[in-house]
């Protein structure tokens, strides 16, 4: 197991390097001019100097290696320094990946946006699990019952209807017609007392439910089929014939075994949910990481786009790894060597 983990970790490094190269090359070699949006009155030689100041004077491979160094060495060092309050080397001179449009370090921009995204994505994912697991369990236990048929139908609708449609329908119903919930997420809101907590709760309901229901639809299908696989196994019959109470059989024996594949699906789905949050953030105007990315794409802010996209890639590789390791840890029948 340990050797397998090390091997997987070592394999993740070249994967990430190749992905970083693809992302960098794609953005760098594409026909786009960072000074194209500046006023036309700026003379040509000033434009050249602006390009030089943006770090475009070096050849492609040097820029790629510099970007890698900044992202993989300098930024982690900065994070360590901030976290423990220590200083490693001359941290003033350390180059950082800077946004072309704001000239601020990209990592700081992301750090400012991350709490909003994390709270919405995190809460919605927990809501999704809380909805999906009971529905999946009951659906499987009472297979072909009315509950199962309705549950299957609703989950089919849940993952067929795109989030941008459920989101706008929610806004139409709850903000426009009923006027209960705000349609725009206010990130300046600070939770200090009960009133502001209620306001925060109210503005989180819609984005969390939109993302949560979409994920719950997928998870409940997995949960149901995994339960069905386990319910027909012999150990269930053994447990029942020992005279164990039905809740114990279902909730302890079967549920624990059926959770094994579901847990890995949950881990695998998390990065996708992060990327999917781009759309939810756009609907409810949450200024999270997704909106940073959209803004950077529209403003041709290449360093920000490269960094955010690469962070998404890191998340995917990381959670793939976690899912694989979890699978091996939770299920002792699986041997990797």
């Amino acid at each position: 197991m340990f050797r397998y983990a090390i091997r997987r970790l070592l394999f993740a490094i070249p994967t990430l390097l190749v992905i970083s190269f693809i992302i960098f090359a794609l953005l760098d070699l594409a026909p786009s001019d960072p000074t194209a949006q500046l006023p036309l009155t700026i003379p040509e030689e000033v434009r050249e100097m602006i390009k030089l100041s943006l770090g475009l004077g070096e050849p492609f491979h040097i820029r790629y290696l510099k970007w890698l160094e900044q992202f993989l060495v300098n930024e982690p060092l900065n994070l360590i320094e901030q976290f423990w309050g220590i200083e490693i080397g001359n941290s003033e001179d350390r180059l950082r990946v800077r946004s072309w449009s704001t000239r601020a370090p990209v990592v700081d921009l992301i750090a400012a946006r991350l709490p909003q995204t994390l709270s919405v994505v995190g809460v919605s994912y927990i809501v999704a699990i809380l909805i999906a697991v009971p529905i999946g369990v009951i659906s499987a236990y009472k297979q072909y019952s009315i509950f199962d048929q309705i549950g299957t139908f609703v989950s089919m609708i849940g993952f067929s209807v795109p989030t941008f449609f459920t989101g706008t329908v929610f806004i139409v119903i709850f903000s426009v017609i009923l006027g209960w919930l705000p349609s725009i997420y206010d990130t300046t809101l600070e939770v200090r007392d009960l009133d502001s907590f209620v306001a925060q709760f109210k503005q989180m309901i819609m984005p969390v439910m939109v993302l949560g229901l979409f994920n719950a639809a997928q998870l409940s299908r997995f949960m149901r089929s995994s339960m069905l696989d386990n319910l027909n196994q012999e150990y269930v019959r053994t447990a029942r014939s020992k005279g164990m109470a039905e809740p114990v059989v279902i909730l302890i024996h079967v549920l624990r075994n059926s959770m094994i594949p579901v847990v890995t699906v949950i881990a695998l789905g998390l990065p996708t949910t992060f990327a999917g949050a781009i759309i939810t953030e756009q609907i409810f105007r949450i200024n999270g990481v997704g909106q940073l990315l959209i803004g950077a794409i529209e403003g041709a802010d290449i360093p920000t786009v490269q960094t955010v996209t690469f962070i998404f890639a890191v998340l995917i590789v990381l959670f793939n790894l976690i899912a694989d390791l979890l699978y091996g840890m939770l299920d002792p029948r699986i041997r990797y060597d």
Partner: protein
Amino acid sequence: MTDSVQGRVLAAEAEEVELRHRSLWLDVWHQFRSHKGAMAGVGVFAFIVLAVLLGPYIHDIDPQYLDYRAKNQGMSLAHPMGTDNLGRDMFAQVLAGGRTSLAVGVTAMALSLSLGTLVGVIAGFFARLDGVLMRLTDLFLALPILPLLLVIIMLFRDTLRSLFGPEIGIFILIVFVIGITSWMQTARIVRGEVLAIKEREFVLAARSIGTRSYRMIFRHIFPNVLSPIMVSATLGVAAAIITESALSFLGLGFPSDFPTWGRLLFDGVPFLNINPARVIWPGLAISLTVLSVNYIGDGLRDALDPRIRGR
């Protein structure tokens, strides 16, 4: 007396034999018909396709015709889905948008399916290429698809527009990017099937009479992996339609004057307060299409699975 009983038994047996001698596809069809959701899906999907293809001939208002006096109207006989803020007829726009959305869905699916099948068959059949191709598949699976799609479209939109014109250019770009970022699942499934089929006796028999590789693939392997490919195809159409409308919804898909359902929805969002119907109709069209296609896929999967069929 005994003769007639025997005769009846024989007749019954003959009937049973007759029943057993149905063709594979008839069998699949019988199983498929018993899946109510799938049949409903076929009905709804056929209705949407027919409406989108034939609708513009019956409801023949030009979707781009501006009529400022009739802007932001509700449902009426002249405008069954109302009008938008420029007085364009929403029903005509939804029909026109549906043509583009469905065309994108089908074309992107065809591209991703051919890529996936090609990679899967080659990886499964030629052991030497297996490692390289599967690593490539893993690599693609690790790419953050939605951000990359947005980036590619932003970067190459103008270039392709100037090369092929505004409408065809964006169509080619979107179909291409969706196609090359969604073939991985098909490739994995097909490879698995090919690996299993390769070990079967009929392949050994074919090999032992000296069948060439390409004939082997087209004559023996390919027909046997057709069922997972068909299931992938239906699910691929749904996924492509969703992806395209998500891109259009983020403002990086089709332009307003060449709308798809996603773009119509995106254009309707600022007018939610005045005219919510502008969002509801295109959204409903996307959802119904995807739902029906997903049900068809579900039914196909059950019908093509020999372990479920005939039960």
